[in-house]
């Protein structure tokens, strides 16, 4: 016994956990299955993660970082317009790729789990704060450079993140009335209006940017698992 912590094992456990939780849910997932997928013993999984809450929180963190490796770093000097970058950011927050879809499932699992396990609420809080700051920084930079109309970046970012959640959940579940494209356009239009850009965030250039970042377009059929 007394499993030795090693980095590779922890990483493999998290990879396996993300896949299993996305497929089976945090409630139903068997720790033994995750251990099997990761090629480690169940006791090692328990050693690293002493509760389902801890496992979910870490799996989500792991997935967040890996779902969009190409997530834009807002500190980098802007290549292309800020509006195009915002469009790319929106795409990275909707279930546009299989990896992001998996990330989304975990996100929704976190909401539900956090209702009954308050110890998870700070995790949600942290993720919300990070996302909102990500958008707010980009918007603020655009306002400063004069590309965007003056607005309250925090307020606009808050609303954008809430809209992304509301639309993302419909895309995720596969509502035929709300395909990915409609969701993209609707959230982008709302953001564009606030920034004084009319009705869209330069859709063409946004699309090019997402292709440049290697974001494959999703087949937007049903979101069935």
């Amino acid at each position: 016994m007394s499993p030795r912590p090693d980095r590779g094992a922890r990483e493999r456990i998290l990879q396996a956990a993300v896949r299993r939780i996305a497929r089976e849910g945090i409630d139903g997932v068997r720790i033994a299955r995750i251990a099997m997928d990761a090629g480690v013993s169940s006791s090692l999984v328990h050693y690293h993660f002493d509760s389902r809450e801890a496992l979910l929180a870490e799996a989500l963190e792991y997935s967040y970082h890996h779902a969009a490796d190409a997530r834009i770093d807002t500190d980098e000097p802007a290549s292309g317009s800020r509006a195009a970058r915002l469009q790319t950011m929106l795409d990275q927050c909707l279930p546009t790729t299989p990896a992001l879809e998996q990330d989304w499932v975990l996100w929704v699992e976190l909401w539900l789990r956090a209702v009954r396990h308050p110890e998870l609420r700070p995790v949600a809080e942290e993720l919300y704060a990070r996302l909102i700051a990500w958008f707010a920084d980009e918007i603020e930079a655009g306002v400063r450079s004069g590309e965007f109309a003056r607005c309250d970046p925090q307020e606009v970012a808050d609303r954008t993140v809430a809209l992304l959640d509301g639309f993302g959940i419909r895309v995720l579940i596969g509502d035929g009335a709300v395909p990915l494209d409609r969701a993209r356009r609707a959230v982008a239009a709302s953001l564009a209006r606030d920034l004084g850009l009319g009705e869209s965030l330069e859709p063409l250039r946004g699309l090019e940017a997402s292709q440049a970042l290697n974001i494959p377009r999703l087949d937007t059929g049903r979101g069935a698992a």
Partner: protein
Amino acid sequence: MSPRPKVDHLRKPQIVEAAAEVLYERGLFDTRIGDVAERAGTSSPTILYYFESKDRLLEEAVEFADRSFYERLTGAQNQFEHAGDKLVHLIEETSRGPGGLNDYTLWMEIWVRARREQRVRNAYFRLDRRQRELIAEIVREGQESGEFRADADPDDFALMLSGLMDGLGVQVTLGQPDVSSKRMVDRCLALASAELGCDLHPSRPAGRTRVARS
């Protein structure tokens, strides 16, 4: 075998109501049929006679919670003359904080489950559509009376407002520090005012709202 309850019409609604409460408190995964039976004052076989699975119970429970919400809502809406007041009322009722069957807990159960179960997914689509249709109807009414901008698309607006309410509703239900139910109302009203070209304000505790065409 096969219990033939004689009081169908009485017992089923009681079971659904009990199921809604238990599911709200414990979640689908941790709910046992026996828990629901106990709450409803009946037996597990009786419950299984009406509902073949927990998913069916969830579906009906959310349908029940949603229907009671809309009955209450539409009942109260009749007192309002203006479409703007109706919209404010709908937003305020949807933005109530956590701690009632109508916060977002049961919706989250549905969302998590809908990806895995076709029937639950269909139930979600049906309920979601009902909400959007109600919003779109209020918008059309306001457009006819000249309160709202005529060129706003009622269905697009309904989807937008509904999306925003869901996104914020999750945060309110999770008790996110920056999102109180008051802020949720303010943000939804700001969106509605901008999209519909009007000026909506929260109703005062006493009740009435003022709507001014901008």
